[in-house]
C-alpha cells in the first residue's frame, strides 16, 4: 500500500535526483581521463620475487635517492614531472614560446604563498599539486598512513620534496644524549617527505611517507586532465647467486632447525607458492569456503568490493584456513587476507585484514623484523658477526624472544646479505605491548664486505634499520607495572618516532613514576577535547599510553605522524 509519505518521498526524490544533463556529460567525458588500468604485477612475477628472496637471489635497488626513486621521478617523460634545474626555479614559466607550467611542476605554483609556507626553495620540491578536498588524500597518496587532520573538505596543496632533500623545516625531538649524535637521517625506498597546506595556511609536515601509487591528479577532482604519475612499487630483480644456506653457527638463542620458508600476514603461515594458487575460492563448495563468504559479507563495509575479486586458498588444515585476494583490481597493489577457523561449531569467520607479507623461516615461527643493535659498533666490511635486535611482530605481553628465536636464515649474493629470523609465538592471549628487541648474535660464513645488509622478513627484503642511540622503554619493568605504568607503544610507532623525530624512550625510575600526577583518564579527556576536532570524534579508535612522562595517543590503524 502506498501511503502519502511514500508518494511524497518518491515525488521529491525524482525532483531531487533530476540532475543537469551537463553534469552527466561531464561524468561521461571523464572516462577518457581515467588512469591506465592498474593490473599490478602478475602472480607469477610476485612468486618470482618471493622465490628470489628465498634463494637469496633478490637484489633491490635500495640506496636512498638511488635507482628506485630515480625511476619514479618521471614515469611519463612528456608530463610536467621533469626535474627543475637547481637555482632556476620556474624557468619554463617565463618562456613566451612555451606553454605555462602545469601541476605537478612546482613552477606552476611559484607565486603561491602556500608553497612558501612549506619552506625551502623551488629546487627542493619535485612535485606540487592541489587536492580539491584534503580528505581525498588517500586517493592521491594511497599508501600514506592515516592522517585524520586531513579529513576535512577544504582544498589542500601538496608539495613532495625531492628524494635527496629532506623536509627543510627541520625535525623536533630531544637532543641526543651527551657525547653522541643522531645518526644521519635517510628515507626508505619509495618514501619522501611531504608538506600539505590545508586551506590557506594550516601547515602539516609528514616525514618518510610512502608515495607508492601517488597520483598528482584524480579524475573528476581537477580541472586539468590527469598526468599519469603512478609510482611503481619496488620490485626484486634476479642476480646470479647460490641457493641460500643457513648459518653454520646459529645464533646463541636459536631453538629450531629445519628451514621451510613461508609467508604470513601475521597469523597462520602459508607456502610461498600460495601466492600463485588458483583463484575461485569465493565460489567453491565446502564449509571453509562458506566461512570465507560469511567473512566477506560480515566485513563488507570495511572492505567494500572484496566480494567481487577473485580469492585463493593459501593454506588449510583441520584447524583453519587462510584465503588471499589481490587488492589490485580495486585499490593499490597488495593483498587482503581472510582467516577462518574450525571449531566444535564448524567453520567460522575469524579475521579479515590488510595483509602485510612477512617471511618466516618455517611454519612454527611468527614474523620478526631486525635492527642493528646500537650497543655494539656498526658492522664493517670485515665483519663476520652481526649484533642485532630481534623485534617480534606478534603480541607477546612484553616478553623477550629469548629462547624462541629460529636459526637465522642467511642468503648471500654479490650485492647483499639477507638475514631472516622468526620467533616462536607465545601460547594463549597476549597483550600487545611493545618490547625493545631481543639481542642476538648472527655469525656469517663470509665477511659482509660492501654488501647491503637486508632484513629478509620484509617482502621484498629491506635494509636493516639502524636504531637511534637512545635507550628503549622496558615495559616489563616490574616496578612500573605495579603502579600501572610502563606500557609502551607498538614497536612500529617507537621505530617511527625514533627514526623521524628522534624521540627515544626509557623507563621511568620508580621515584620518577611516583611523581606523575596526571592520570591516564585525565590526560585522555584533555587531549580529546583539543582541536583538531577529528581526534575528539575519533576517540574510540585511539589507544592511549604513558610513555615516560608523556602521554602518547596513537590510532589503532597505522597512522601518519606529522609535524606542524
Amino acid at each position, binding site marked *: 500500500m502506498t501511503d502519502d*509519505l*511514500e508518494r*511524497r*518521498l*518518491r515525488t*521529491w*526524490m*525524482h*525532483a*531531487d*535526483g*533530476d*540532475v543537469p*544533463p551537463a*553534469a*552527466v556529460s*561531464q*561524468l*561521461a567525458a*571523464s*572516462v*577518457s581521463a*581515467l*588512469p*591506465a*588500468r*592498474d*593490473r599490478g604485477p602478475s602472480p607469477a612475477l610476485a612468486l618470482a620475487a618471493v622465490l628470489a628472496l628465498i634463494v637469496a637471489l633478490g637484489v633491490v635497488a635500495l640506496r636512498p635517492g638511488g635507482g628506485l626513486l630515480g625511476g619514479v621521478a618521471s614515469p611519463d617523460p612528456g608530463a610536467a614531472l621533469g626535474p627543475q634545474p637547481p637555482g632556476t626555479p620556474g624557468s619554463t614559466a617565463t618562456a613566451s614560446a612555451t606553454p605555462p607550467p602545469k601541476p605537478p611542476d612546482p613552477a606552476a605554483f611559484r607565486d603561491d604563498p602556500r608553497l612558501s609556507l612549506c619552506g625551502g626553495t623551488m629546487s627542493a620540491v619535485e612535485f606540487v599539486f592541489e587536492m580539491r*578536498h584534503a*580528505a*581525498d588524500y588517500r*586517493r592521491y597518496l594511497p599508501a600514506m598512513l592515516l592522517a585524520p587532520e586531513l*579529513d576535512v573538505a577544504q582544498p589542500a596543496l601538496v608539495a613532495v620534496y625531492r628524494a635527496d632533500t629532506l623536509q627543510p623545516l627541520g625535525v623536533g625531538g630531544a637532543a641526543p644524549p651527551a657525547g653522541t649524535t643522531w645518526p644521519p637521517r635517510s628515507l626508505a625506498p619509495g618514501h619522501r617527505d611531504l608538506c600539505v597546506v590545508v586551506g590557506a595556511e594550516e601547515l602539516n609536515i609528514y616525514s618518510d611517507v610512502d608515495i607508492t601509487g601517488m597520483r598528482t591528479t*584524480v*579524475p*573528476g*577532482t581537477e580541472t586539468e586532465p590527469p598526468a599519469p604519475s603512478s609510482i611503481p612499487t619496488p620490485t626484486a630483480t634476479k642476480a646470479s647467486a647460490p641457493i641460500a644456506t643457513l648459518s653454520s653457527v646459529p645464533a646463541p638463542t636459536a631453538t629450531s632447525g629445519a628451514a621451510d620458508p613461508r609467508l604470513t600476514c601475521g597469523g597462520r603461515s602459508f607456502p610461498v607458492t600460495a601466492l600463485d594458487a588458483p583463484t575461485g575460492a569465493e565460489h567453491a563448495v565446502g564449509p571453509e569456503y562458506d566461512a570465507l563468504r560469511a567473512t566477506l*559479507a560480515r566485513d*563488507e*563495509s570495511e572492505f*567494500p*568490493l572484496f566480494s*567481487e*575479486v*577473485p580469492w585463493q586458498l593459501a593454506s588449510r588444515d583441520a584447524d583453519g584456513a587462510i584465503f588471499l585476494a589481490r587488492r*589490485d*583490481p*580495486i*585499490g593499490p597493489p597488495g593483498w587482503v587476507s581472510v582467516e577462518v577457523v574450525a571449531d566444535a561449531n564448524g567453520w567460522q569467520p575469524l579475521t579479515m585484514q590488510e595483509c602485510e607479507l612477512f617471511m618466516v623461516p618455517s611454519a612454527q615461527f611468527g614474523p620478526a623484523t631486525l635492527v642493528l643493535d646500537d650497543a655494539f659498533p656498526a658492522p664493517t666490511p670485515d665483519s663476520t658477526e652481526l649484533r642485532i635486535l630481534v623485534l617480534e611482530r606478534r603480541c607477546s605481553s612484553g616478553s623477550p624472544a629469548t629462547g624462541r628465536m629460529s636459526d637465522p636464515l642467511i642468503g648471500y649474493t654479490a650485492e647483499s646479505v639477507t638475514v631472516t629470523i622468526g620467533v616462536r609465538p607465545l601460547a594463549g592471549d597476549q597483550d600487545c605491548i611493545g618490547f625493545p628487541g631481543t639481542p642476538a648474535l648472527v655469525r656469517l660464513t663470509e665477511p659482509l664486505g660492501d654488501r647491503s645488509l637486508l632484513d629478509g622478513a620484509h617482502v621484498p627484503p629491506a635494509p636493516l634499520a639502524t636504531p637511534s642511540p637512545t635507550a628503549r622503554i622496558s615495559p616489563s619493568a616490574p616496578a612500573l607495572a605495579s603502579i600501572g605504568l610502563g606500557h609502551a607503544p607498538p614497536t612500529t610507532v617507537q621505530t617511527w618516532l625514533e627514526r623521524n623525530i628522534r624521540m627515544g624512550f626509557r623507563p621511568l625510575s620508580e621515584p620518577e613514576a611516583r611523581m606523575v600526577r596526571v592520570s591516564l583518564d585525565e590526560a585522555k579527556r584533555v587531549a580529546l577535547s583539543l582541536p583538531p576536532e577529528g581526534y575528539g570524534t575519533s576517540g574510540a579508535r585511539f589507544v592511549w599510553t604513558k610513555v615516560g612522562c608523556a602521554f602518547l595517543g596513537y590510532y589503532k590503524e597505522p597512522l601518519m605522524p606529522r609535524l606542524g
Partner: protein
Amino acid sequence: MEVAIESLRVPLTPLVRRAATGDRDAFRTLVEPQLERALGAAVIMVRSHADAEDAVQDALLSAWQGIGSLRDPEAFPAWFRRHVVRAALHTAERRGQVGELDVDAPAAAGELDRALERRSLARAFAALDARDRVLLTLHHYWELPIAETATHLGIPAGTVKSRVHYAMERLRAASDAEERR
C-alpha cells in the same frame, strides 16, 4: 526508465571484454546509460551535488580498475550500480547526517507550499542515517529488485521490506518533527 542499454539488449559481453583490455571507449559505452540515474541517486543519498559527483567518480574509477574481475559481463549494470552504491554509502557515512541542505531556488507564487513541503521532506530525509538514506533511495528512486537491494546493502533479501518499513517510520518521525519546527 531502466537503463536504455538493458532495454535495447545490447550485448554487453564484447564491451566488457574490450573495457577489460583498457578500451576506454567501450567502458564509456557501458557506463554512459547508467550515469544519469547513478548521479541522481548519489545526490539523493549524499545530499550534496559536489560529493555526489565525487562518489560517482569514485565508482567509475573502481569499476574501471575492477572490470577485469567481473565474472558475468551481462550483469554489468547491476555490478556498476554496486560500485555507485558503495561509493555513495562511503561518502554519506563520512559526511554523517547533514543538517543543512542547499536552499531551493525561490519558489514562484503558488509554489511556496510545495517548495516548503519539499524542503521539509528533504530535511527529514537528511536527518536519517546513511544506510537508511541509501536503502530508501535504492527502493523508491532506483526501484531496484529486492534481491539486488539486499546484495548492495549486504542484508538478507527477506529483511529488505521490513527495513524499508522501519526506515519509512523513522522518516515519518523526522518529517513530523520538521513540520513542528
